[in-house]
């Protein structure tokens, strides 16, 4: 039976202080990662998950960081609020900042981690679209058979393999998110359509655009809630890249979004989502364009 007040399921608990210790704990059969808990504990309460052990990673100080170099590296124990509080996130990656502001209430942003949102891999996860548009990669760590720590880095879009499914194997831990530095004349934005402000998105969308004068020299767009996993809008990107931005060229590119998505009737009808996605992507690109310093005739 499920309820939201107590957890009846018993599990073992591990509280590693180092990454290596966590990776060892994760080799135990049936162990899974516990970070902020806002997804995992609800799943356990509701009976959707019955892990044999939980490995709590927010006690690992080596995973709690925002590190600026040639781009940004976000440790996987970093809560959303820290992105909100670091002024450079808003300045350099406004799409990500928009997502923070739209995501959950204060108490959730103070608990939930960005990496946890990726690992839950909801098709409408608010972190996915902006990080995909910003060309993020994820660093995944594990201990190999010889007992050594190994790391691999993959593009975020290859991390999602299906609804609530990721490329993480048993024993692996997402240790960091890497975002390259944005181009000088560039802008990014994130927008979502949801029932009320805090709700999970029906559709969300992020666009990153590089600009030379009135021309979109490079566009990356991603959408959530419109396919089994967050998707890149390749047809839209191809149609828009190299074009002068006008309401006409944008509307034509936005029609191409239909090629990129395969919505189901979830939280809204598929027909509505197709229609709304083509407008949402236009709005999002316009905001990103303005942030890149561009103007658009109306």
């Amino acid at each position, binding site marked *: 039976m499920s*309820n*939201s*007040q*107590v*957890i*009846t*399921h*018993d*599990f*073992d*608990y591990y*509280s590693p202080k180092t990454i290596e210790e966590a990776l060892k704990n994760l080799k135990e059969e049936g162990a899974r990662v*516990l970070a*902020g*808990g*806002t997804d995992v*504990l*609800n799943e*356990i*309460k509701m009976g959707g998950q019955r892990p044999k052990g*939980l490995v*709590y990673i*927010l*006690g690992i100080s080596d995973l709690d960081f925002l590190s600026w170099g040639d781009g940004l590296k976000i440790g996987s124990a970093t809560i959303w*609020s820290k992105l909100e509080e670091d002024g450079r996130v808003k300045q350099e990656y406004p799409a990500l900042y928009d997502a923070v502001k739209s995501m*959950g*209430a*204060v*108490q*959730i942003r*103070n*608990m939930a981690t960005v990496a946890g949102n990726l690992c839950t891999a909801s098709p409408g996860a608010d972190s996915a679209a902006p990080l995909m548009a910003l060309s993020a990669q994820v660093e995944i760590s594990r201990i190999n058979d010889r007992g050594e720590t190994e790391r691999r880095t993959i593009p975020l879009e290859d991390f999602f393999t299906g609804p609530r499914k990721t490329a993480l194997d048993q024993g692996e831990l997402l240790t960091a998110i890497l975002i390259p530095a944005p181009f000088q004349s560039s802008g990014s934005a994130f927008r979502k359509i949801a029932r009320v*402000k*805090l709700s999970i998105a029906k559709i969300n969308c992020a666009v990153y655009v590089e600009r030379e004068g009135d021309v979109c020299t490079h566009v990356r767009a991603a959408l959530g809630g419109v396919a089994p996993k967050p998707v890149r809008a390749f047809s839209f990107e191809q149609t828009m890249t190299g074009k002068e931005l006008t309401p006409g060229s944008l509307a034509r590119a936005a029609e191409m979004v239909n090629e990129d998505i395969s919505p189901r009737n979830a939280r809204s009808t598929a027909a509505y989502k197709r229609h709304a996605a083509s407008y949402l992507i236009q709005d999002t690109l316009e905001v990103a364009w303005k942030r890149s310093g561009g103007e658009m005739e109306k």
Partner: protein
Amino acid sequence: MRIPIVLKVNGKEYCLEVKPNEILLNVLRDRLHLTGTKYGCGIGECGACMVLLNGRPIASCQTLAVCQSGQEITTIEGLAQNGKLHPLQEAFVDEGAVQCGYCTSGMILSAKALLDKNPDPTTDEIQEAIRGNLCRCTGYANIIKAIKTGARRIREGTRG
């Protein structure tokens, strides 16, 4: 499996043994008898179970007690000092910001966390700060008024 933990609540240390699956909210209410923190939705959406963790509002229904061993927790019971209500608590009384009272603990803790960072917030900033606190009596207007009054009294060092 029972694990010894030390919960630091409202400046006091409590040494307990908990099972890994015990939720912080239930330990506060059932073991420490700090019943000012309420069980509302149980899924982190309503704000009734809010406590401050190292000064930040969190949902105590969404974390295990064992995860918070050694951390500083503040519940609504920790706000009054020497038998005197906190200025925000007084302002909630004076402005009639309490109806059924179920959301009040969370509202006041959200407001306290806000004022600790921003002593003179705008209405928008207050609304943003209490976005995760649902009041089903829909008494928001007086709650916002009370937070402004509390903020002013704290700034001026006066009380109601």
